[in-house]
């Protein structure tokens, strides 16, 4: 039952428009692959580790093929072909390619079908590993249980994975449900994923498969102690979206930031590259049971949260449809939004509430991710703590799923141990104290709240209508999202986009989207 009395015809119309917008982009995606997509295939087929120069072997192997202009057949083809010709495993093939003792491109070639058959057992093995992690999550959730929604989501960011573990365990004991390990600054711009455990990072810790494993183990241990499954979150938006998604799937991450639009707008990554990358990454995410988070909240840090609220909703509609195209169930769609209006606005709380309830009514089954105030946090930690309290009240009232906790020291420093405690205490108090407020209170007909939601929805619908006409690429070029303009040919990573050959194959897409057991 809608509390906002939103017109279902407008909602459905906007959703159909978003589906057509995403479908148009999907046509482009289907014709292309990328270096990161192919490195992900290599990883899933068993290539890991680094060469003597610390270059990851998936990069070494894929670059060899790319430099020869043959990546249009896909990495799986070349690995399958080389396996048939040499009898070596993908890992050995990559190692010998790195050493220069084997040239995978100077061997007799087989048909695409034969190469696909050669890798088929390895595909099943990788799928089984991911499936096993998914089942392990379900088992642990059944055994340990979990916190109530909204889940309390906090960040650790020391740069040293072992220090992160200490902070993460403390946060879990204090009541956190999700621990996100912020990546080191600018990792999103690296066109490779670093290897091994890391202890040096700035403003965050490198996302590596080993670091994922270390934190997973720590959270499983503390989860047993506190009797609650603790979810692990990391970040994949950037140049290596599908690779990080694959590592996350293999190491049982539960939540993953994953948004091409975020990469385009806020990290200046080429739009063609990252939209293609996003597709495979979301297929992996859907298959592995990970909740993805989109980054619409960021629009409101650069654009005005009151005036540009509709851009968030329009983008959520589009992100939802990209997720549908990658086979992600609604429950795994962590569409993002934020509490970022200027606290000086009269009735600002009502507008924030209207928008949060609106998001929940339009995406009722999604795992909405709600982001805290950042732009108008001033260093007055006392007022900041109250801003965070209002944010928490809106969250429990509107039924958000993932609550990234605001820190009273936002805009001063990365959180100290006590900041995290205070923010968890703040949220726990309000969530418990107002648990069912949303069930009790209805909104006045023609009142501020209903009218605000109706207005934002109609603006979003109008924007989607315009995007459908112009296309998503042109819309981004015009700076309609976050007030940031990016060109189709600009940004980082365009050189890593390749037009597929007629015989190209990625052996993981189809079984993952089918949800093969």
């Amino acid at each position, binding site marked *: 039952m809608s509390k906002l009395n939103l017109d279902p015809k407008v909602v459905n119309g906007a959703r159909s428009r978003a589906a057509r917008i995403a479908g148009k982009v999907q046509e482009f995606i289907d014709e292309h692959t990328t270096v990161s997509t192919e490195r992900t295939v290599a990883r899933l087929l068993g290539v890991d580790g680094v060469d003597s120069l610390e270059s990851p072997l998936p990069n070494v192997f894929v670059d060899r093929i790319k430099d020869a202009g043959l990546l249009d057949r896909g990495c799986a083809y070349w690995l399958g072909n080389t396996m048939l010709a040499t009898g070596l495993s993908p890992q050995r093939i990559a190692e010998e390619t790195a050493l220069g003792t084997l040239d995978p491109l100077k061997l007799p070639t087989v048909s695409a079908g034969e190469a696909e058959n050669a890798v088929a057992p390895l595909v099943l093995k990788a799928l089984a590993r991911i499936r096993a992690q998914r089942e392990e999550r379900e088992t642990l959730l059944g055994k340990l249980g979990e916190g109530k929604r909204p889940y309390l989501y906090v960040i650790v960011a020391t740069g040293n994975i072992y220090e992160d573990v200490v902070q993460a365990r403390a946060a879990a*004991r204090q009541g956190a449900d999700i621990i996100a390990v912020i990546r080191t600054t600018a990792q999103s711009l690296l066109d490779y994923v670093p290897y091994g455990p890391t202890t040096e990072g700035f403003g965050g810790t490198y996302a590596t498969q080993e670091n994922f494993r270390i934190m997973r183990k720590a959270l499983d241990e503390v989860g047993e102690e506190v009797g609650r499954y603790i979810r692990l979150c990391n970040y994949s938006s950037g140049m290596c979206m599908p690779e990080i998604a694959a590592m996350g799937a293999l190491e049982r991450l539960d939540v993953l930031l994953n948004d091409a639009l975020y990469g385009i707008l806020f990290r200046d990554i080429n739009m063609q590259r990252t939209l293609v990358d996003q597709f495979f990454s979301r297929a992996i995410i859907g298959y592995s049971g990970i909740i993805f988070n989109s980054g619409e909240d960021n629009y409101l840090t650069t654009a005005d949260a009151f005036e540009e609220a509709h851009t968030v909703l329009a983008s959520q509609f589009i992100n939802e449809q990209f997720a549908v195209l990658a086979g992600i169930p609604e429950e795994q769609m962590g569409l993002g939004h934020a509490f970022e209006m*200027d606290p000086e606005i009269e009735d600002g709380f009502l507008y924030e509430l209207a928008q949060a309830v609106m998001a929940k009514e339009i995406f009722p089954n999604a795992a909405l991710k709600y982001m805290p105030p950042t732009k108008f946090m001033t260093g007055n930690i006392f007022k900041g703590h109250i801003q965070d309290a209002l944010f928490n009240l809106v969250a429990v009232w509107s039924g958000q799923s993932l609550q990234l906790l605001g820190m009273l020291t936002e805009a001063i420093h*990365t959180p100290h141990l*006590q900041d995290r405690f205070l923010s968890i205490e703040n949220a726990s108090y309000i969530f418990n104290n107002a648990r069912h407020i949303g069930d009790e209170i209805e909104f006045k007909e023609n009142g501020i709240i209903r009218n605000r939601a109706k207005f934002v929805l109609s603006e979003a619908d109008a924007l989607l209508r315009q995007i459908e006409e112009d296309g998503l690429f042109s819309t981004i070029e015009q700076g309609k999202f976050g007030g940031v303009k990016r060109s189709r040919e600009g940004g980082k990573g365009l050189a890593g986009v390749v037009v597929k050959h007629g015989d190209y194959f990625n052996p993981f897409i189809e079984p993952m989207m089918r949800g093969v057991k």
Partner: protein
Amino acid sequence: MGKVDLTRVKPYGDTMNDGMTELTFTLPVPHGPEADEAARQLCKKMGFDEAKAAFSKDLGQGFTFFVMYGKCVHTVDFTSIKVAKADVEVMSREVCQEYIAEHIKRSVVIVGATTGTDAHTVGIDAIMNMKGFHGHYGLERYKGIEAVNMGSQVPNEALIAKAIELNADAVIVSQVVTQKDVHVSNLTNLAELAEAEGIRDRIVLCCGGPWISYELAQELGFDAGFGPHTYAEDVASFILTEMVKRKLV
């Protein structure tokens, strides 16, 4: 009410010279009476008499959080304090625009960015973006100023290259969130780079952010530094006056 002695100033709670101060911190010790005593002794060493833990809490992993109250024993002489400030009269946006028309007679190019590892654009946006902050319009709205906001995580090299490319009159840089004092080395590097590229003398170089003071900025080789509560007109007034003063028009 007791009269304040400005040569011996100390914190005020509800009675003159009571020295009342609140502090919060975390100690890496397990929660318990010994932890409270450790916090009290530490406060004593910091100069707080009769320190008490109003609240202490186990944070897990052997850490304890404290909210402490104590009476500060130290004083400062307020009458002898001198703080370096940008010596310039702040002009409104309209007056800045007239000032440009009258004294500079061409368009003033200002390039800005949040540099280094900092991903926070809130400071530079507040100063530069059309909309500004809290009703103070940003530099983009100033007639006669061409404001170029490069965004966040801009390498110093890219900022200087842009300044050279656009023949900028001023470079302004924001540092919001810092860790382990990285903003100091980053800003120093920027000033040195401007020097090495030979443009230092022909630009006005300013920095801003919650950790920045005018004094620190000068120490690091900048013409001015702006702390919290700075708006576009403060920065514009300084840049324009400085340009005229240094004959950079």
